[in-house]
């Protein structure tokens, strides 16, 4: 029974994808979206049932469908494992996906590639399900790459758009952004593959249970190498510095995609990997600390860029990046269940935020610059509420989901004695609150800064708003399940409890974070709630420009990696391949041909010359004979 549910949960999205693909090249058919969404809902229902099953019995469901690759001593099955961790992910993924699917029916209403969109989106969910459900690293890698491709397809969904200069559109074009995302992810995937190789050659298997059971016997260096390699894989998917640039560019995709893939699910795959492979990471404190430190850095780094950005979606993308940093910080510090909890909570409120942004975009006819918005509260009340709730959750205001999860992470940093990390995370929490509300205020408050004569913002369809409500609800209440969640997942994950010392200080710590968060909101309110006042001096300052240009990292990559690569390729082809390698080959041929031209001159046609050649030949023979006689 449970096995069937596993397959239903896994293959329902696939069926949806195939069904939509059948109509992929036909004009919009609303029922395609409905079918796909229903199948997703079935998948969600199955996942939820499984979650309940796992919760009530405490036992994991493990199925092996068939053998995939078997060569040498390597055997990789298609095996699926539904345990506390994967079932959490499954539920979150299918829930958010279902919402996003329904949302997309409304959002993609006018797009002529409506059917194709659902095909891609459901395929993504299928890949994601493989990623989280697989019982081995190779299966995870299938999903890993699968979500990469779906992400590529979806970012580049509007492939027909032309490239623009970076000044006009920092992401250049959807197709450019899609390729960037794919290639950057591939860099990380190589790390991941190497991790797999290390594990295979030291353990002899890629099955989680076998590998984790073997961890105690492995040497430290092997574990470190494996952990590092796996984490490099995670860095790509979760867009950690320095592989982060693709995530903001990925906002070229349709907004539901950003909500689902680039906020709630795919980008958290890296965190999931670290959580999934926690026995390895637990055994490698150095790598784990590196993960925590990098996560903390990214949290701050991304938040800083979000402070000044004007693009609605990019701000949310930076915030996603920043939150991923939080999750890594938690996972790196050993608080795996907290990381997973934040992952889930973040999925809800971040998806909600994105979908809200999608509503705004829909209303504003594709406009994304928050400097050109304002006063949308009137027209889009529900969206305002949703985004407000989501932002409160993101900012970590008590009662809302983010408060519980993020606070726990910050406390963990304190608890581990890594006070620097703690300080940074607290500061970041403040910045998070600031940029979230800067965005909310600039969008919904103040006066309209767009041309009201041509643009008439309107609220999204009702059914879309209703579909978003579960997310909103969860963004508010998810935090209350923290205790239950802890008991549930720590059956599998190592438990993490604060020390007594931290426990005593917990109110102080919470208060500090709250001060920063509220301070951030207050600052944003002061500055932006009553409309936008541009501060030329500030905007021209070095720091502002640095932040607005993402620390010039994309430019740096372009100047120092992309362009040199293209140039080098050109040289390799024209100068090395053509002028050296090929020219050598042709040179030998030409040399032979030329020497043929030279040698044929001896064939003068003149008999006298021929006779001379004969005489000369006999002399030469004598000489050669003499030399060889002397030598022998």
């Amino acid at each position, binding site marked *: 029974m449970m096995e069937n549910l596993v397959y239903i949960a896994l293959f329902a999205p696939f069926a949806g994808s195939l069904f939509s693909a059948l109509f992929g090249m036909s004009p919009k058919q609303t029922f395609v979206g409905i079918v796909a969404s229903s199948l997703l809902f079935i998948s969600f229902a199955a996942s939820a049932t499984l979650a309940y099953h796992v919760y009530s019995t405490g036992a994991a469901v493990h199925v092996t469908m068939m053998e995939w690759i078997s060569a040498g001593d390597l055997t990789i099955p298609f095996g699926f494992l539904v345990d506390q961790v994967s079932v959490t992910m499954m539920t979150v993924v299918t829930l958010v996906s279902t919402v996003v699917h329904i949302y997309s029916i409304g959002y993609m209403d006018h797009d002529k590639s409506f059917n194709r969109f659902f095909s891609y989106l459901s395929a993504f969910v299928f890949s994601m399900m493989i990623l989280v459900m697989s019982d081995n690293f190779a299966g995870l890698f299938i999903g890993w790459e699968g979500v990469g491709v779906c992400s590529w397809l979806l970012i580049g969904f509007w492939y027909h758009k032309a490239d623009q200069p970076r000044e006009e559109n920092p992401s250049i074009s959807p197709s450019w952004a899609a390729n960037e995302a794919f290639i950057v992810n591939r860099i990380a995937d190589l790390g991941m593959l190497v991790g797999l190789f290390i594990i295979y050659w030291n353990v002899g298997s890629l099955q989680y249970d076998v590998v984790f059971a073997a961890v105690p016997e492995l040497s430290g260096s092997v574990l470190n190498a494996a952990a590092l390699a796996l984490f490099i894989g995670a860095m790509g998917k979760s867009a950690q510095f320095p592989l982060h640039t693709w995530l903001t560019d990925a906002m070229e995709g349709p907004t539901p995609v950003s909500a689902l893939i680039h906020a709630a699910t795919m980008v958290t795959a890296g965190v999931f990997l670290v959580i999934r492979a926690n026995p390895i990471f637990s055994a490698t404190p150095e790598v784990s600390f590196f993960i925590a430190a990098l996560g903390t850095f990214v949290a701050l780094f991304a938040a800083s860029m979000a402070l000044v950005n004007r693009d609605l979606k990019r701000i949310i993308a930076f915030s996603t990046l920043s939150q991923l940093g939080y999750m890594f910080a938690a996972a790196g510090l050993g608080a795996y269940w907290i990381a997973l909890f934040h992952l889930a909570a973040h999925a809800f409120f971040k998806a909600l935020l994105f979908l809200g942004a999608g509503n705004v975009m829909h209303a504003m006819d594709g406009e994304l610059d928050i400097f050109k918005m304002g006063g949308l509260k009137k027209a889009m009340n529900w969206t305002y509420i949703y985004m407000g709730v989501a932002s409160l959750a993101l900012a970590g205001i008590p009662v809302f989901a983010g408060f519980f999860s993020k606070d726990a992470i910050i406390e963990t940093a304190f608890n581990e004695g890594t006070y620097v990390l703690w300080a940074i995370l607290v500061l970041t929490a403040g910045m998070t609150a600031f940029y979230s509300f800067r965005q909310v205020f600039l969008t919904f408050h103040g006066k309209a800064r767009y041309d009201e004569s041509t643009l008439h913002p309107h609220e999204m369809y009702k059914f879309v708003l209703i579909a978003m409500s579960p997310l909103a609800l969860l963004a508010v209440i998810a935090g209350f399940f923290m205790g239950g969640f802890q008991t549930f997942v720590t059956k599998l994950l190592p438990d993490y409890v604060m020390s007594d010392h931290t426990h005593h200080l917990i109110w102080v710590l919470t208060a500090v974070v709250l001060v920063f968060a509220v301070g951030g909101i207050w600052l944003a309110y002061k500055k932006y709630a009553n409309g936008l006042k541009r501060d030329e001096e500030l905007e021209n300052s070095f720091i502002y420009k640095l932040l607005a240009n993402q620390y010039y990292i994309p430019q740096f990559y372009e100047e120092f990696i992309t362009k040199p690569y293209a140039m080098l390729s050109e040289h390799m082809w024209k100068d090395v391949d053509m002028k050296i390698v090929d020219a050598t080959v042709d040179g030998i*041929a030409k040399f*032979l*041909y030329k*020497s*043929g*031209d030279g*040698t*044929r001159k*001896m*064939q003068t*046609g003149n*008999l006298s*010359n*021929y*006779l001379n*050649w*004969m005489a*000369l*030949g*006999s002399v*030469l*023979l*004598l000489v*050669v*004979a*003499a030399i*060889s*006689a002397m030598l*022998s």
Partner: protein
Amino acid sequence: MLQPINVSLESLNLITLAPMLIVIAGALIILILDLINNKLHKSLYVMLTLLILFVDFGAVLGLNVNERGFFDVMLIDGISIISQLMIIVGSMIFIPLALTSRRFHEYSYPEFFALFLFMIAGFQFMVTSDNLILIFVGIETASLALYTLIALHNRSNSYEAAVKYFTMGALAAAFYAMGSAVIYGLTGSIELYKVAEVMATRINETGLMIAIFGSSVLLLVAFSFKLSLFPFHTWAPDVYEGASAPLAGFMSVVPKIAAFVVSIRIFGMYIDLGVEWVRIIILVMAVLTMTLANIMALVQEDVKRMLAYSSISHAGFIMAALALDTTEGTTAIFLYYALFMFTNLGAFSMLWISRHKNRRFDARYDHPYEKFAGFIQIMPVGAVIMGLFMLSLAGVPPFSVFWGKIYVMQAAVNAGYVWLAIVMGLNSAIAAYYYLKLIVYMFLMDPVKDVDTIYYNLSKPLMAVIGLATLATVTAIFYVQPLISYLYYMISASGY
């Protein structure tokens, strides 16, 4: 006390002379027929010649291995029998080529056929003796007849070719004679087996070495000329160009077989005696010949000249096998020629069918590459056959020359000359270019417009000959085994 001369006919063992006598008698019959009636058609002479050769073939087959006869100057050993057989088979392929659909000057003379038969007799004498006098007589009989045959083609180029060949041949003859004189002076004998015995006993004398030196170099010059080895090959391209196509094909095979037999006898003797530098200079010449002839062939504009250079290169290839002086090496020589003969004669016959009275494509050449452009569209079967010949010459398996090639290379490897095998391999690669060039012209180019058909000279006998050559080229894989075992048996029986 003087003994009365008493020669018993049995000791003469005249049967050893029978093959040559048959051919000479045949030639005389032809001349007599002409005297009686000079209006007879060439087809009669062709068939007559074929029949005479056929009888000759039978006579050779009937010989016993390792016999001497006629005052011991005749030596019937394995190589003499197989070489005679090959000479006769080569001639039998050549002769029907006279039956072209167009009339060509030389074939209307019965003398052509008589001379041809005399030439065959000369070659047969060359290969069935180890007496330097008889070899000389054989060489000269054959050569003088050949000069005349070339000249009979009755074109200014053929006269030029004949004169060039003749003059250089005369010089080579002088070298041969002088070389024989040196040998005679050294050993007091002109019978090679006696020469070998005497030399073997005196091999360590310094003076003798110098003399061997002189004699071997002089003889090597003479035979290098016959075998067209570098730098004595200069006559070959011009003579082949001047001669008619079938005769050129014939010349690239049959006289060389005869010359190789004599070379095996003489230089094999030197190498057996342990005169290592003879081997070395032969190897040097062989390598130079195959390489330089190949690169000169690369730049030829005329197919016939290209084939001339190609056969020079092939000769160099085989010369290297001679230097190995192993049974396998010697077998390789004959195997190679046996296989090469069909392909090469076939290729030259293909030129022959495209022969015109006047040059239509090029002022200088009879068979420029352009003539064969788009041959596949004009005459698909002909193009495919010519393509097969070219591939075979290039050494593409499973066509005939490939088997000869690997046998030679295997012999080289077995004798410890791996480098030689590699040089041969690389040379085959260079050679592939010019054979390919013709294939490219035939298959990949469009025909030259405004010039009429190029299969001008085609007739049934020619088709039969070409068909036979094609068959022999393509099915080589099936008869290589019996050929090898026969050749190997004959050669090892005669002690080489």
